[in-house]
């Protein structure tokens, strides 16, 4: 769970994660309570269990469940309006001029949760684009729709 902890620390969140409750299925990471542990019958065929926390790709990508949980904490956040929020869930980056409110210090490389009406819709990393500061989309909730299309 080193990768997950690195993400949690990187974004400045606090998250209790007992090693004995952590489960790894291929690249995916889960938190499993004692009740569900009784239902691990065949690890080869198990694909998902308990609370899905995210998956490891080049870097750790948190699940929407984890993002929703940590978004209640005091973290780096940008608040956007509906139009910018929708463009973000369509995979677009966010320009500084489209941010309604920033919580936290914006530095190149720092991570920010993207909030729409007090709900987390994803997160991004501060980057520069043509001399301007942008929040580069790393993960957004539109991923659900993209995954659904892939599965059709």
């Amino acid at each position, binding site marked *: 769970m080193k990768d997950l902890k690195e993400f949690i620390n990187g974004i400045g969140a606090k998250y209790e994660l007992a090693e004995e409750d952590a489960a790894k299925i291929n690249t995916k990471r889960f938190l499993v309570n004692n009740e*569900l542990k009784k239902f691990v019958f065949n690890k080869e065929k198990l694909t998902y269990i308990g609370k899905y926390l995210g998956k490891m790709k080049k870097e750790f990508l948190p699940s929407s469940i984890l993002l929703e949980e940590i978004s209640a904490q005091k973290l780096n956040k940008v608040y956007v309006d509906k139009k910018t929020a929708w463009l973000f869930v369509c995979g677009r980056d966010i320009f500084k001029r489209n941010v309604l409110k920033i919580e936290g210090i914006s530095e190149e490389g720092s991570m920010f949760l993207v909030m729409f009406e007090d709900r987390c*819709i994803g997160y991004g990393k501060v980057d520069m684009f043509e001399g301007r500061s942008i929040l580069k989309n790393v993960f957004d909730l539109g991923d*659900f729709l993209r995954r659904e299309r892939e599965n059709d």
Partner: protein
Amino acid sequence: MSKDFFLKRYKEFGHALKGTEKTRRALRVNTLKISAEEIKKKLEKLGAKVSKIDFVKNGFYIEKTDFSLGASFEYLFGMFSMQEAAAQFAAEVLDVSSSDIVLDMCAAPGGKTCQIAAMMENKGAIVAVDLKRDRVYALENNLERCGVVNCAVYCDDTKKMSFGDVLFDRILLDAPCSGNYVTDYDWFKKRDIEGIKFNAQKQRELLMAAMRLLKKDGILVYTTCSLEPEENELNMQWLSENYKVRFEKINGPGSAALISVLGQELDKQIANCRRFWPNETHTQGFFAAKIVKQ
């Protein structure tokens, strides 16, 4: 087989169907995230008109909308799922409690699994199994979107799986079936009696597995979206002849299941099962049985 063949068949079962019936679009509220009242207000504010489905707890018919509900923030936040009204009925019949251990045998794409999880308030345990990996991806996607945390998913054949010494309080067997013409435009061209009998045999194999995995006094809910008696009442007759079971009465829309069908007189208890005929319920075709293992 032709459309005429099947429509004549349904007429013999007491239902003069046209073969052009349509289902009403519906959604199910995910009560893990929001209440039915709150989502109704939100959707109405967005310009959608919805009305309560009277035979399920947290479902709405979509009467009118000028935007795609499936591409809304509320959908992405997991506040609701698009789920046909009859399909919402299966989990209602299962009647779970938050301490149950539940097996969802043919779980993908997971609409019913998420519904069961919400009914259990994310407590207890659900073991969800499906054979096809691409469909299991959809199931996992739905579990994440809906915030389900009390579920273990297996990509496997339930019939061959070992569950150790675990027996389940509740089992949902929403069996793969021949489907029905309401949700499949080409249905009449694709289906014949041989295929229906083949599916019925496969369903019996799943029923055998379900009976093996169910606790004594546990409840198995068997559902299909087929209108064909071979996959419904005749399978229930086979079950009653081979296992000690009782069929609990299901209250709801539609009609009692058939007990005099295709020249056979069936166990009278089978009338406790429920059939949704598309001309009566304005849903897809649907069959539900609530079986208690004795």
